[in-house]
């Protein structure tokens, strides 16, 4: 009936129009003032009036809202219709001479683009794109890309990013719009810092809890460490939940996780050993942009490690002009060149870092010909091309090399190599995709050239990976991303060959190469509903371990040992030896309690199919990786978190309190006296254990103002038990540190001078004290009894640094092209002799008597001076 009425009305209107107006052009009558008097009309009344004045309108009156409309003086039919459209009352379109009216249906359009640094063209990761100063907004992804789909209308778009001036622009959104913005870095003068560095409340609004992000370009990112060296991993250690066992120990523990349970990514490629000697990370601060540590909720797009994701991105290279920067300090010297190939379209970056002093901290100034000598080099490369707004291509690479010489007779080289190609494609403003493929290798090589046993031993792990991710944005509050990844792992655990075939007496030993395919696909949905944001998804991981390989079968019910081997199974090339698969659900809920306050809860299940075989307190560069296989199960972690996030004073202060509980299954541990070197049956040395970790993390940070910094405190416990029958008790792990407090502050004193200071305190790590001693063949041997759990004395340290900027202006007032600054640093300011460990040894003065000697790696105040430049 309704339909019939509609057609009748339409026919009637068309008829009228044909009779009366075929000879009139639209422009003439649409722009003439209406004859009807001003006043308030009902909408259908008003349209009837227009029709009576000869305007060829076609509409169905029952589709129009029943509203009262004010007709203004001198209003023309065109301005009236436009106003009605703007006020979202009706929509209109032209069809020949006819004007078709319809009810207003809200249209949505997408704004997308990239946010860049105005000076260098570098893409800004994690910049906040906000609409109308409201809670509607998004952050740029790892490629500086953002996408927002919102109803049409007029919007104020604000870009906020730490270290950049806040940017505002107004757009009338009536079509899909590409809006790429160049943000101006804040000029670091006292006044402007105060005014411009307004930070976002992303820490409160983000649906991903427990994230630590450090931007190397910030004041906080530039805090110097030992000998004035800036180091992202050292900086991360000052944040909650991230710790290490000792001052010389490489490897970090995140929320009670083990050192091999962190997924360390450099431009999305896995890095297997993130450290040089004395705990210096391989990430050259000159060449990297930022570090992000995900330690609680791990989004489903990540997988393969159970504890955390540590994501580091290299800079992209100045897209606008050729520039050079570098630094010289006692620790290392760095140089970087970057610039455009084609301005705004493609750019490159190349950087080198070389250690200067002998990094053997016990003997770095020694002169003996038999002294150990350690040094390293890093080379970073990156090229990107952006031929159009839909496509960006990246090629990045890294080569690290550590060279250690031990005395006269042996040396070792080790390092990571990585090359990665990525393609970002914007299918449509709402659909962003990233395709990434990389090759990553970690290898070491030992050479012993003393005849006749001279040998070369090598070990290597190589990953070949392809990964595709797609993000679809329904609207700013509703995003889906999904993708898959696959990694082909090839491990050569150990080859040992004669140094010189003709004279060397060494036999050639080659341990079986291991092969596996580790794949995962995931789906992730982020939805904002009222005061809640849900981020949930599923990762499904698959792991195929395949031949050729020989697998030993052991007698059941007794520990694996050479003597309990009952059979050997042979697997042909590409034959699947073992297949594991796991569903890994991940859920995070953010409940916005009020403005700048939120409560976040999350659950993540993580599975790890690759393990570092190391039975020393801290990992060593010669440790090998091992795939899960016929005998070694994947490690599994369940983590639960609950946290309260609150910002104060317009986000000047950020605070959070978070609790976590983790259950770790199938951890790898070792039997006493395990022999891990060139062992073909490593499973005979391994025992599995179960662990748990729980803690409270408190964080308070001041994000802008002349003084910025943070205070972090972690109360935690990490325990483990060897559990063939689940009856044993949990024992604290050797990296358990119940109290961990760190605080770091930077203060700007003048235009050119700033000071920074950090203080760190933590409980000493557990150790077992000897109960008895005895003499065996003239050597004093401690006997532990293994029940005397004690701890090292507490660790605390204060560092201080002063940064002096070179003059920015010439005498004639023009800005200098050459910019430089000096960093003066003091490590261990109050000369605390922090105990790194105890030695249990025979007294040098009284033969046969035991003495406990505390050893401090740094028993002095260590000054450092670094000169940095850029032009």
């Amino acid at each position: 009936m309704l339909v019939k009425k509609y057609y009748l009305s339409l026919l009637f209107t068309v008829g009228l129009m044909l009779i009366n107006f075929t000879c009139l052009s639209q422009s003439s009558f649409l722009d003439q003032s209406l004859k009807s008097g001003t006043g308030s009309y009902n909408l259908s009344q008003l349209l009837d009036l227009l029709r009576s004045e000869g305007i060829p309108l076609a509409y169905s009156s029952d589709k129009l809202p029943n509203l009262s409309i004010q007709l203004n003086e001198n209003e023309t039919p065109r301005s009236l219709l436009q106003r009605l459209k703007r006020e979202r009352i009706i929509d209109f379109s032209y069809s020949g001479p006819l004007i078709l009216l319809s009810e207003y249906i809200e249209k949505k359009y997408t704004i997308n683009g990239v946010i860049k640094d105005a000076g260098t063209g570098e893409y800004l990761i994690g910049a906040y794109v906000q609409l109308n100063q409201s809670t509607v907004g998004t952050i740029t992804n790892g490629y500086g890309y953002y996408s927002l789909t919102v109803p049409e209308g007029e919007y104020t778009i604000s870009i906020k990013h730490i270290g950049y001036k806040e940017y505002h622009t107004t757009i009338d959104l009536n079509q899909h719009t590409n809006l790429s913005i160049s943000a101006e870095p804040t000029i670091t003068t006292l006044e402007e810092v105060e005014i411009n560095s307004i930070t976002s409340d992303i820490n409160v609004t983000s649906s991903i809890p427990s994230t630590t992000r450090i931007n190397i370009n910030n004041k906080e990112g530039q805090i110097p460490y030992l000998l004035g060296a800036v180091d992202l991993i050292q900086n991360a250690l000052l944040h909650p939940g991230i710790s290490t066992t000792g001052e010389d120990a490489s490897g970090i523990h995140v929320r009670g996780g083990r050192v091999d349970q962190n997924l360390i990514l450099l431009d999305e490629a896995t890095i297997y050993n993130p450290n040089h000697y004395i705990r210096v990370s391989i990430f050259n601060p000159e060449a990297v942009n930022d570090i992000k540590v995900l330690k609680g909720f791990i989004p489903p797009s990540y997988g393969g490690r159970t504890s955390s994701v540590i994501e580091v991105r290299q800079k992209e290279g100045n897209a606008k002009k050729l520039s050079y920067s570098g630094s010289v300090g006692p620790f290392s010297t760095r140089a970087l060149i970057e610039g455009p190939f084609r301005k705004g379209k493609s750019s490159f970056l190349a950087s080198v870092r070389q250690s200067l002093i002998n990094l053997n901290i016990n003997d770095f100034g020694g002169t003996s010909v038999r002294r150990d000598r350690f040094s390293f080099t890093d080379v970073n490369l990156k090229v990107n091309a952006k031929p159009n707004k839909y496509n960006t291509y990246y090629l990045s690479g890294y080569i690290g090399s550590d060279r250690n010489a031990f005395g006269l007779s042996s040396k070792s080289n080790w390092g990571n190599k990585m090359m990665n190609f990525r393609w970002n494609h914007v299918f449509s403003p709402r659909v962003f995709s990233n395709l990434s493929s990389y090759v990553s290798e970690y290898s070491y090589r030992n050479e012993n050239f003393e005849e006749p046993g001279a040998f070369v031993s090598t070990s290597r792990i190589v990953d070949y990976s392809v990964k595709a991710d797609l993000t679809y944005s329904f609207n700013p509050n509703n995003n889906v991303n999904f993708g898959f990844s696959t990694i082909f792992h090839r491990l050569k655990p150990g080859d040992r060959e004669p140094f010189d075939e003709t004279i060397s007496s060494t036999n050639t030993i080659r341990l079986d190469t291991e092969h596996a395919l580790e794949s995962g696909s995931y789906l992730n949905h982020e939805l904002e509903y009222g005061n809640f944001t849900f981020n949930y998804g599923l990762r499904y991981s698959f792991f195929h371990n395949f031949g050729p390989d020989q697998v030993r079968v052991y007698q059941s019910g007794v520990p694996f040992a050479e003597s309990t081997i009952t059979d050997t199974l042979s697997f042909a090339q590409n034959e699947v030896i073992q297949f594991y698969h796991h569903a890994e659900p991940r859920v995070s809920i953010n409940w916005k309690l009020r403005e700048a306050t939120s409560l976040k809860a999350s659950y993540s299940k993580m599975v790890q199919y690759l393990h570092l075989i190391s039975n020393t307190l801290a990992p060593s560069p010669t440790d090998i990786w091992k795939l899960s296989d016929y005998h070694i199960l994947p490690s599994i972690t369940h983590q639960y978190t609950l946290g309260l996030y609150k910002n104060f004073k317009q986000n000047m202060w950020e605070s959070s309190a978070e609790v976590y509980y983790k259950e770790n299954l199938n951890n790898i541990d070792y039997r006493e006296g395990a022999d891990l070197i060139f062992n073909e049956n490593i499973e005979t040395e391994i025992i599995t254990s179960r662990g748990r970790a729980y803690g409270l993390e408190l964080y308070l940070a001041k994000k802008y103002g002349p003084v910025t910094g943070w205070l972090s405190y972690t109360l935690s416990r990490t325990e483990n038990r060897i559990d063939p029958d689940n009856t044993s008790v949990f024992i604290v792990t050797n990296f358990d540190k119940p109290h961990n407090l760190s605080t770091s502050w930077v203060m700007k004193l003048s235009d050119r001078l700033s000071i920074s200071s950090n203080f760190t305190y933590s409980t000493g790590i557990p150790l077992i004290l000897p109960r008895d001693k005895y003499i065996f063949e003239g050597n004093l041997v401690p006997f532990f009894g293994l029940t005397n759990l004690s701890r090292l004395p507490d660790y605390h340290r204060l560092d201080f640094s002063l940064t002096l900027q070179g003059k920015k202006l010439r005498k004639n007032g023009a800005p200098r092209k050459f910019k430089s600054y000096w960093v003066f640093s003091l490590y261990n300011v109050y000369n605390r002799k922090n105990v790194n460990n105890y030695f249990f040894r025979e007294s040098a003065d009284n033969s046969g008597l035991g003495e406990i000697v505390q050893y401090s790696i740094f028993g002095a105040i260590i000054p450092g001076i670094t000169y940095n430049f850029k032009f």
Partner: protein
Amino acid sequence: MKKIFSVVAFFVILSCEEVVIIDLPPELNLLVFEGSVSDRLEVQSIRLTRSNSFSGQLNPAVEDATVSVEDRNGDVYPFNHDGNGVYLSDVPFQGIRNMEYRANVVLSDGDIVQSGWSDIPPNTNIVLLSVDSFEENDPLLSGNLTLFFPRITARDSADYPNYYRWVFFKNGEKVTDPESITIQNDLFFDGNFIPNSFSQFEYNEGEEITVELQAINQNTFDFLALLKAQITTLGSSASTTPANVTGNLTNTTRPSIPVLGHFSTISISSASAIAEN
């Protein structure tokens, strides 16, 4: 160059060590057994002591035990106390290749301690001992000094899994520091010349170098490997977890009480030379 290093070293005096006193739990006083039977015809020796508190006095000797070694044929070799816990076989005897031996100790409280059976491994001959040298910067005086070290030629036997231990003597005195425990597994050189990188055993000109190449059993190798790890790496970040170095001895009367130390059966080959060019 040296000056630059010195200047840096002046500014940065790094690591430091300090002896500390820490409260330790009460001592356990466990029996410690040191001894072996070698393939040399000689008076064989066994030493018995007791462990005591780590920071305590010298380990007390066990002087009132009854000690003997027996072989699989049932022959018993009694040992007599010779002072300071050292027990000597009352007659010289030599371990026979492939014969198994074990040690028996009867303590004054009646407890019986026994080792596992252990056989004498095949002897590996030192073919040649030569002396090599290198120049070292004198840490005190400007100039160089010449240091000497032994190079030994010996060949591993291919038809047997072999384990070796090297023992060095300087002017007849055994070098005993923890780092000097030198053991090898023929996994890497089966049937070939035995590697001899011994430049860490430095001798001054004119000193007498004596080297013993001992063929040992796998359980002795494992025991010494763990012992060395425990007395050389503990405390550094490269350290293994503290473990109790358990040997092959058991208190058969009260098995819950650990017995420390190890009883080994070894074959010895030795050579001497003077440190000179």
